[in-house]
């Protein structure tokens, strides 16, 4: 489902870049890469964690391989977001098979580094749960849009979110 919120629409400069890149201008592609890399990194990092750079790279490889298939350049961000989430989840699962996550340690109570707390809690969630949380709290999507993007039912998103929130609450109040 395309995201029609104003924040998801691309600005004029980005639209021009997409059109020029689709026509084969590699300088426009390079400039578009500069625009997209931080956004893709922000999507991939909370889902793929340590494999964030690998996931972001794979997502951008997929973006540039199929850029010509993007029919509506104004939908760029939503299209890129869907690719980034998919690649981040896939990368996270791939690494989880080879390097089992260590779930034995709890975040220290009252840790002054809030970012460390978030990281610890994200470590406890599955990649899909991390994706749901990121889509809602970082990207600001509603549950219906997040469900469409992940290809699951809204009820599944709600239950994943509930579980993710519950894990956060337990970790922060333990």
């Amino acid at each position, binding site marked *: 489902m395309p995201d029609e919120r104003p924040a998801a629409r691309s600005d004029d400069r980005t639209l021009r870049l997409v059109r020029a890149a689709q026509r084969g201008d590699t300088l426009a592609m*390079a400039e578009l890469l500069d625009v997209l*890399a931080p956004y893709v990194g922000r999507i*991939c990092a909370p889902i793929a964690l340590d494999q964030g750079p690998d996931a972001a790279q794979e997502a951008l490889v997929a973006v540039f391989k199929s850029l010509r298939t993007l029919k509506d350049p104004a939908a760029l961000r939503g299209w890129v977001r869907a690719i980034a989430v998919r690649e981040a989840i896939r990368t996270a699962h791939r690494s989880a098979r080879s390097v089992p996550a260590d779930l034995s340690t709890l975040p220290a109570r009252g840790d002054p580094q809030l970012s460390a707390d978030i990281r610890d809690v994200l470590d406890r969630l599955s990649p899909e749960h991390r994706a749901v949380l990121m889509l809602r709290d970082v990207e600001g999507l509603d549950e219906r849009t997040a469900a469409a993007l992940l290809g699951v039912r809204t009820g599944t998103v709600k239950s994943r979110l509930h579980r993710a929130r519950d894990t956060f609450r337990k970790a922060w109040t333990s």
Partner: protein
Amino acid sequence: MTEPWPLTDLDSVRRLRALAAGVRGAHVTEAHLEAPFEQVWALLDDLEGSFGQVVPDMERLRVISRNGERVEALAYSKYGMRARLRGVRRPGWCWLQSRFLLIGVAAAPEGAGTRVAFTGGVRVPGRAALIPVGVRREGGRSVQRLTDLL
């Protein structure tokens, strides 16, 4: 949102891999060099000097204009051909195109050394595509020449 969520940024070599994926026929040649990034990039950043020695079939390169990261240059081939290259140059990154040529170079620190990546070749005019002849060999030559200069 006030929580500091994890972030990630892509280094130049990863960016080059992603961009080259969108250029049909492109090949990325990579190598780890046992030299610090500053030393490696000093060679690649010297567009009118050592850069021309590293990039295959280029006799010399003359910079016509610079505007921030943007650069325009004339490249002279050993075979007398001339190309007007336009592109972007910043530490660890150089991406130049003309109607018939594409040159992409990236470098990023890797341990105590440097990872370098090259791509490019003869462009299908005006397209994000290369004529896939010799692209692997040329990349290998660039790595060898750069290694020889260090």
